[in-house]
């Protein structure tokens, strides 16, 4: 049955989102960024944002995210994607800028931008892919690296006394009044990927309604820099990352609770 021709009558129940051009990604095998980008593509399709969305490329493994969507895009300096997205939203209130940022980009050099954009309550969507290291440059220590974790710049493991403790960005931003929706999700199994899709959809709907920033932290696999087999990477998230970064919603304005009823899944 597998080698038969695809019948025109057959119904594709899962296929590539229309908004994503048919091209191979540049990510390493098993990288969670591919899943994250596909989920955003599905949400852009469902909300019909092809003419409204502006993709703000950040620095890191997400740098070429404008290649993977059929929407207008721009590139931001390292860490400044929330600032660029703010400018786009304020100059063109009818457009909807979104950015995918890695943890080296958002939690390290761009920490000031994300905190102030969240405090101002900008109506933008930020997807934060947290894989506990600087992926693109070769797996160095990031602010989100776990205690004891080996990276290429902490070859004896991260030590509390020398390198400090990892930052929980979602909890930190949830203390602010600006953001409408803050949630942390994981990609380690299909059920959690479905939850991630729902969270990303809410993070797009809330700013579109003018309620404030939508922010989703995605715990993402990075098997190459974690030095594990790709097939063991989801279990690595369960064993190591989720105890440090618990999943769940950290901020949800009462108006967003109403929006959630409209989200399928």
């Amino acid at each position, binding site marked *: *049955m*597998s*080698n038969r021709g*695809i*019948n025109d*009558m*057959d*119904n*594709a*129940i*899962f*296929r*590539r989102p229309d908004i*994503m051009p048919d091209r*191979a*990604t540049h*990510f*390493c*095998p*098993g*990288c*969670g*960024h*591919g*899943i994250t980008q*596909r989920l955003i593509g599905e949400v852009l399709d469902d909300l019909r944002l092809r003419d409204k969305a502006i993709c703000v490329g950040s620095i890191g493994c997400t740098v070429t995210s404008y290649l993977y969507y059929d929407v207008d895009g721009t590139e931001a300096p390292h860490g400044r994607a929330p600032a660029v997205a703010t400018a786009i939203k304020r100059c063109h209130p009818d457009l909807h800028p979104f950015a995918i940022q890695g943890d080296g980009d958002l939690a390290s050099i761009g920490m000031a931008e994300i905190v102030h954009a969240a405090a101002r309550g900008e109506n933008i969507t930020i997807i934060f892919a947290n894989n506990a290291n600087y992926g693109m440059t070769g797996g160095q220590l990031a602010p989100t690296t776990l205690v004891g974790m080996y990276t290429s710049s902490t070859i004896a493991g991260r030590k509390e006394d020398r390198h400090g403790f990892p930052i929980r960005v979602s909890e930190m931003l949830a203390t602010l009044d600006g953001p409408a929706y803050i949630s942390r999700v994981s990609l380690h*199994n*299909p059920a959690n*990927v*479905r939850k991630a899709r729902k969270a990303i959809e809410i993070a797009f709907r809330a700013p579109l309604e003018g309620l404030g920033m939508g922010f989703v932290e995605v715990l993402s*696999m990075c*098997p190459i820099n974690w030095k594990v087999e*790709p*097939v063991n990477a*989801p279990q690595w998230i369960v064993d190591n990352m989720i105890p440090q970064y618990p999943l769940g919603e950290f901020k949800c304005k009462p108006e967003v609770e109403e929006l959630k009823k409209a989200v399928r899944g």
Partner: protein
Amino acid sequence: MLISESRKTSYIVIDKDKCKACYYCIAVCSKNVIGISKNINRFGFNYAEPIEEKAHECTGCKSCAIMCPDIAITVYSSRVLEGDID
């Protein structure tokens, strides 16, 4: 034509030139429909492919496609008519 039974079947198609051999799809498939090919694709990976003998067991749960980081998997559902013709 008398149609005695009509049932729904599902099958998957894997774009071998997008597969990067992470094998998440094999790990999540509850029916073990997917296996590793002996051939390599243009990246040099032993890509994942549906196993010929087990393909009919696919239930169309989409778990493999949901976990695929490279959007290499498309899931189809078709209505197959099994009937006696008299």
